[in-house]
């Protein structure tokens, strides 16, 4: 089986690759957004702690 055949996917390429691509994209996005949420939460907590420090 040639590489071209593989990408052709028996004529279903137009549906199959978007489907796989989309799922991979969503999986990557989920990891990225979760990590961003964590970083965001850490930053917010640090800010809060610093505010408390300056107040006391």
């Amino acid at each position, binding site marked *: 089986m040639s590489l071209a055949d*593989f990408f052709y*996917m*028996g*004529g*279903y390429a137009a*549906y*199959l690759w*978007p*489907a*796989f691509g*989309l*799922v991979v994209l*969503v*999986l990557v*996005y*989920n*990891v990225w*957004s*979760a*990590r961003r*949420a*964590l970083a*965001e*939460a*850490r930053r*917010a*907590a*640090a800010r809060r*702690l*610093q505010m*408390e420090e300056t107040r006391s």
Partner: protein
Amino acid sequence: MWKWFHMLASPPHFYRIAGLTIPWFGWPALVLILVGLYGGLVLAPADYQQGDGFRIFYVHVPSAIMSMMVYGIMATAAAIGLIWRMKLAHAVAAASAPIGAWFTFCALATGSLWGKPMWGTWWEWDARLTSELILLFLYLGYIALRSSIEDPQRADRASAVLALVGVINLPIIHYSVVWWNSLHQGSTMFNPGAMSIEMKWPALSMLFGFMLYYGAVLFVRLRAEVIRRERNAAWLRQELAL
């Protein structure tokens, strides 16, 4: 046992243990998903009816299973949070919702992409797809309710009630949609029970990969939730190295 449980549920401990556990979920998840993709796209033979088009199955079905499983976990966590007033359980429910919603979205989108060559239309009012769509609405309602309540404790408890009402309704919705659908058209797609083993294993690999992936992402989100809810400054300061 109980004492161990309490220790695990205390924020500093949980935060550290979660941090240690994430790679143990994340890397195997990556391996299993890659193996599943290779198996599904290359090794598995083409279906004798649908040809290579059936390969969408390898992302569609695991996504659909995950979308329901995550809702179940979310509702269970919500119930635990309501009954035992456990903050960590509420955090699990909160962190699960976006992941579950994205799995639902994947199941819908891949179902539609599969439907176009099989049925000739992008959207068919098929029982499974319709239930999946309503499930997406339930997720979106949950997320919307949570984001519109400012007080985190109230948001936790209100969304937990909604998750429980939703989980009781889910089977009713599913069976009513199946019943409705059977009146209007025959059975659709194909029957995964009739698959051979070499067609099946990549799907299982994908499914387990997705489960571990969910675990990894959940733990990252949980760490964020734990920090957001934490008011005890001492360990936070230490953790953030301030």
